[in-house]
């Protein structure tokens, strides 16, 4: 158990983690994993949490759900008290299990299903949920439309990855759009396509003024390239998984001017919170991108919960960490995210994102935090 | 031309099939190899042509010498290039290729410019193949497939042709026709032939010399005239009774049945 004191002898705290380093999402999974591992290394180098080192027990699960289950079971057997997951697949698959085992769980899946403690009592969502991101995008679109002196409301199209991850914001975005009199369509992007001309054709017929893209970087890059080639003049807004550095690299010129809703401030927009991870990364020969930051601060929030447990002198157990996280209010991440707040009624930790835009080959800030209702 | 010296063949590293078999095929002759089912005739031919390997068979002792060159360790494709061509048991035509493409495959080791001429030559031996040249070989009748298999061998212009049961499944008339053609090929082209046959009667008619094998060994050899006089050959290979009459299958039944009761 934990307890006060904080001498050298304090017992290490075991945290489990599964990463996608070799699977279909490993392009972003790998830097995210580096962020988490980097944070733990940095924390331990700096005395851990009140003298308790964090022992990160991690492995690659290659985005295979049964592997995730197996590793989870093994790590819980080894005594982890909290868990860092990764994708939608594993987060959903482990949802019931973590509740039964009482293991607080964070991941990079920002599905709105996970924020209701009645349904997913041990899941904590650090990023702005996909639904909220989409709503923020629509909100901004309405403002931008009005600011440019246009009449009425803009038309918005949402194209998304053909998966639960992609589908996740569709309902909420649609409801929000309808409530605000915004004409809205959504469509899935076929897997592994080499072009999205068919989808763009439909979007043009619909007459969209704004296109929200909710997928990962490679297809998003193909999409914007096609949009440019087809002469589409709608403004494009990427949600977080395609508002990253890969997107700019892959889309090249076509990336210029694309907007992005991103809960985590990209390194190209320096804020205080970037300092520590950047310095640590430089010293350890790691690259810093937005996913690294994302992993780093996800672990930071988890550590904050654990710290609270220790400070309160309780045993470091799953339920205690859960309680501590639920009492976290306006936790500051040095400007990297909107202040994080959890409560016993809501695990929707992050209510706001900024809008960024690609300019000169990097992400630049356009707005301050916009919050979803 | 070809000497097989005391060879042993083992399948799958355990099954000993040929147990010190020797035979000789002189240049320009037809030599017949007779023997019961499972005696190892096909195995002998495959040992010569190098086709044992894909079946996990191996020559473990003895040697095979062709025109003064040891060949038993060579690969099949090399042996074909040296001039030995085996017509495999059961025809083995390439079913999805047309008849003519099968012949092209037969000419694989030959220079392309001779192709036309060789093709015409095969068609003179087997006019029926010419009619069917664009038909898929898989749909040819059994006899036509056998002709195709021999035709393929002709395309390769081998010095030594190994024929494995060419009469299998063929109608009597066709059997005689094929044997006639084999004889013609031997005479007109000077192709040496080693012939494996169940139909001992016919084989002995066209062969210059014959070997009889049993259980992996040669048990008897000689010219057809000599062999035909041998009592065992008469009874077991030619199916003749002691007085030279053909045995009746119907009578065999009663004879055998009596034997069954006795045992």
């Amino acid at each position: 158990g934990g307890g006060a004191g904080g001498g050298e002898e304090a017992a290490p705290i075991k945290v489990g983690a599964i990463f996608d380093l070799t699977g279909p999402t490993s392009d972003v999974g790998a830097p995210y994993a580096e962020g988490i591992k980097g944070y733990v290394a940095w924390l331990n180098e700096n005395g851990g949490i009140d003298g308790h080192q964090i022992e990160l027990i991690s492995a690659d699960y290659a985005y295979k759900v049964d592997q995730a289950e197996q590793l989870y079971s093994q790590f819980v057997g080894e005594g982890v008290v909290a868990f860092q997951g990764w994708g939608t697949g594993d987060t959903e698959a482990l949802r019931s299990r973590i509740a039964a085992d009482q293991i607080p769980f964070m991941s990079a899946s920002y599905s709105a299903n996970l924020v209701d403690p009645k349904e997913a009592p041990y899941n904590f969502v650090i990023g702005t949920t996909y639904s909220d991101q989409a709503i923020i995008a629509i909100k901004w679109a309405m403002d931008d439309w009005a600011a440019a002196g246009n009449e009425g409301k803009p038309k918005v199209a949402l194209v998304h990855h053909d998966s639960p991850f992609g589908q996740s914001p569709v309902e909420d975005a649609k409801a929000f759009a309808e409530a605000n009199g915004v004409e809205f369509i959504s469509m899935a992007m076929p897997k592994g396509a080499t072009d999205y001309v068919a989808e763009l054709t439909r979007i043009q017929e619909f007459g969209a003024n704004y296109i929200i893209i909710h997928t990962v970087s490679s297809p998003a890059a193909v999409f914007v390239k096609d949009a440019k080639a087809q002469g589409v003049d709608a403004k494009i807004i990427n949600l977080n998984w395609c508002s990253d550095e890969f997107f700019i690299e892959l889309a090249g010129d076509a990336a210029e001017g694309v907007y992005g809703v991103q809960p985590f401030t990209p390194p190209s927009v320096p804020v205080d919170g970037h300092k520590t991870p950047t310095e640590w990364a430089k010293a350890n020969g790691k690259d810093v991108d937005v996913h690294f930051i994302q992993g780093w601060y996800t672990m930071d929030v988890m550590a904050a919960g654990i710290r609270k447990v220790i400070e309160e002198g309780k045993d470091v157990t799953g339920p205690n960490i859960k309680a501590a996280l639920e009492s976290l209010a306006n936790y500051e991440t040095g400007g990297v995210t909107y202040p994080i707040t959890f409560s016993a009624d809501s695990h929707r930790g992050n209510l706001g994102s900024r809008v960024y835009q690609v300019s000169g080959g990097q992400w630049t800030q356009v707005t301050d935090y916009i919050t979803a209702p | 031309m070809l000497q097989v010296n005391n060879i042993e063949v083992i399948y799958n590293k355990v099954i000993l099939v040929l147990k010190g078999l020797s035979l000789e095929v002189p240049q320009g002759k037809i030599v017949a190899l007779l023997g019961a089912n499972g005696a190892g005739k096909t195995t002998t031919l495959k040992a010569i042509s190098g086709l044992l390997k894909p079946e996990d068979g191996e020559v473990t002792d003895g040697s095979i010498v062709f025109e003064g060159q040891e060949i038993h360790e060579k690969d099949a494709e090399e042996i074909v290039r040296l001039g030995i061509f085996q017509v495999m048991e059961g025809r083995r035509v390439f079913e999805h290729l047309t008849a003519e493409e099968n012949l092209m495959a037969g000419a694989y080791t030959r220079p392309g410019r001779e192709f036309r001429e060789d093709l015409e030559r095969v068609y003179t031996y087997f006019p029926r193949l010419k009619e069917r040249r664009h038909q898929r070989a898989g749909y040819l009748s059994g006899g036509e497939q056998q002709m195709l298999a021999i035709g393929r061998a002709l395309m390769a212009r081998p010095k030594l042709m190994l024929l494995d049961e060419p009469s299998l499944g063929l109608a009597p008339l066709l059997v005689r026709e094929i044997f006639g053609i084999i004889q013609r090929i031997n005479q007109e082209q000077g192709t040496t032939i080693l012939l494996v046959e169940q139909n001992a009667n016919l084989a002995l008619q066209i062969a210059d010399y014959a070997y009889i094998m049993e259980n992996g060994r040669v048990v008897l050899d000689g010219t057809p005239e000599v062999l035909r006089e041998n009592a065992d050959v008469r009874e077991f290979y030619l199916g003749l009774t002691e007085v030279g009459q053909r045995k009746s299958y119907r009578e065999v039944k009663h004879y055998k049945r009596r034997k069954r009761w006795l045992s």
Partner: protein
Amino acid sequence: MPLQLRGFRHPLNGSTLEPGQTQLRVENIHLAFGGVGALAGVSLEVRQSEILAIIGPNGAGKTSLLNSISGLYHPQKGRIVFYNHGREYELTRMKPHQIAAAGVARSFQNIELFRHMTVLDNLMSGAHVHMRAGLFSSLFYWGPAQREQIAFRDFIEDIIDLLEIPAIRYKKVGALAYGLQKRVELGRALAMRPALLLLDEPMAGMNTEEKEDMARFILDVNEEHGVTIVLIEHDMGVVMDISDRVVVLNFGRKIAEGTPEEVSKNPAVIEAYLGH
């Protein structure tokens, strides 16, 4: 159950006809494959308990005729009628498995055994059409399913004895010598308790001794159990000795029919098939 059990003790014959009655009538069938005619108006009749040989040059359509009878090929014209169980089966309208159930069994030109099964299982699968146990009792191997298996095993053992293959009962057929495989194939057809047995070149590729054995088994089945046999064979010695009647095909047509002696003297047959 006991009544039926006694049924298995009956000879291998599944026919209900009296010897000499017409069992199969092929009426003017035509069969072509994409323009190439295989059968062009063949008619013939098979009588109960006879051995009918079909001969003819390669490609004459003999196998095609057997395939038409067993339902594998569908003639474009003509009918094939089969009499058994007091009814008339129009084979040209039936599926192969229905024809098998009606009492027609066969062997194949190139051995078509179930290579990875043991000899015993091959024979047991021959009795498929006579087994009745349902899926559920089979899954649980309950009373009826178990009793049925044991009863048929008994029946199959008789065939094993008849064909003199007890020693290889548990061997996988793929590993057997050619002659034995042909024997097993005959056994599998017999396990169907056929009324009519079709044999496609049962002795091809065999040596004299093996042919003698095979001839013996065929005659046993025919003479002692009264099973009607239609057989294709190129060895004229065999045909002459064991068949009651011979039909000769050439280019998809019947060119002669009669006793072996008559046929072997027929000039057309000599011209097309036997040679001078």
